[in-house]
């Protein structure tokens, strides 16, 4: 039985990573609260009445650790802390909402938030897909590590612990925004080259962040940025929403891909 009032919810506040993983279990009946910027409106308006809430702020899951050329970022790291992260993640973080929201919103919330119904969310997803990030999660069957594009497609039942990626040799970013601090990004395209190759990530081109493999494949066989950018529509899963129509996004997306590739410096 779902709870019918906020007062009935059980709130668990683990004080270590192990406790958090234990309290999450297989995730059934658990609502994970990171910064609260997405879930609190749902509770304030009575659309969400959780049974059990896992409050992660003291679970030791925040912080950025550098190890040689790679970075490990905890799920509870705030978007504000990511503003100085390697590109294109830093730019994507700086484009999220305003200072107060960024100081409260977390990486984990951004990666796990369901599509908002009215708009796609998760501005950081394109950047981390481009960076080839690996995501470590806990849940049924224990801990596992997987590519971020796989995780954001199906985050249910997993507790995000951390994200790891290699610092890129070069990166590019292009996005279309509405001129208000709080509108989600209409479309964002991130490109990054690491020792594993060049990757392209998309936000706003589907219900969650997507990897533009068709563009990557075209570039790998020598296509120009202009030619490769047209291929992006093979990867996109456009939908109409409150920010823009699928029709508009289809026309805009190849242009943004080309801009992000040009922004790499040297193009290719």
């Amino acid at each position: 039985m779902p709870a019918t009032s906020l007062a009935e919810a059980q709130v668990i506040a683990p004080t270590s990573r192990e406790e958090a993983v234990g309290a999450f279990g297989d995730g059934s009946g658990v609502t994970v609260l990171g910064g609260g910027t997405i879930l609190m409106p749902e509770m304030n308006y009575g659309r969400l009445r959780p049974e059990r809430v896992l409050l992660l702020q003291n679970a030791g899951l925040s912080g950025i650790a550098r190890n040689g050329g790679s970075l490990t970022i905890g799920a509870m790291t705030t978007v504000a802390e990511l503003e100085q992260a390697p590109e294109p993640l830093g730019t994507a973080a700086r484009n999220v909402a305003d200072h107060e929201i960024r100081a409260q919103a977390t990486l984990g919330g951004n990666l796990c938030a369901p599509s908002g119904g009215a708009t796609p969310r998760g501005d950081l997803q394109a950047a981390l897909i481009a960076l080839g990030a690996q995501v470590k999660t806990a849940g049924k069957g224990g801990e596992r590590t997987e590519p971020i594009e796989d995780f954001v497609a199906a985050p249910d039942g997993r507790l995000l612990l951390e994200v790891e990626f290699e610092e890129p040799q070069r990166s590019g970013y292009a996005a279309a925004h509405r001129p208000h601090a709080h509108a989600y990004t209409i479309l964002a395209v991130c490109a990054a080259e690491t020792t594993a190759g060049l990757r392209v990530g998309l936000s706003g081109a589907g219900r969650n962040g997507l990897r533009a493999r068709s563009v990557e494949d075209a570039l790998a066989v020598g296509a120009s940025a202009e030619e490769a950018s047209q291929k992006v529509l093979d990867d996109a899963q456009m939908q109409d929403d409150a920010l823009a129509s699928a029709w508009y996004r289809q026309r805009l997306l190849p242009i943004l891909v080309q801009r992000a590739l040009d922004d790499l410096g040297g193009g290719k």
Partner: protein
Amino acid sequence: MRLTVNGEQHDLHSPPLTSLLTALREELDITSPKAGCHQGGCGACTVLVDGEARRSCLLPLAAVDGAAITTLEGLGAADDLSNVQAAFDEHYAAQCGFCTSGFIMAATALIDRTPKASREEILAGLSGHVCRCTGYIKIVSAVEAAVGSPA
């Protein structure tokens, strides 16, 4: 749960997932944080949590247990305004007043972390706050004046 609000300790009895905004207004009768949108979009509910500007509608009480909260009531008094309050007064930076306490709290935190904030930094720092009356010019001018005045 226990909060220190404007220097005074309170034990709160609202459910732990109640927003700080609702607890301040309805349990403690502290009404300067305004309930504009309840979803983080307007900035009217901004207060200081351990000195940093936060939307009180987006914080569950459980997440601020033990914190020190400052609301507009804790900044100054009618005969002893803070420098930001005085600048808003001098520059006619309020019309209906609904957004004003949120703007003043955000500007106070902004000046605290960026004492010589430029106009661009002020615009960026206040960008999450909505005013439906004044058109912002007087608000930004007031904050610029407060940046240049001693605290």
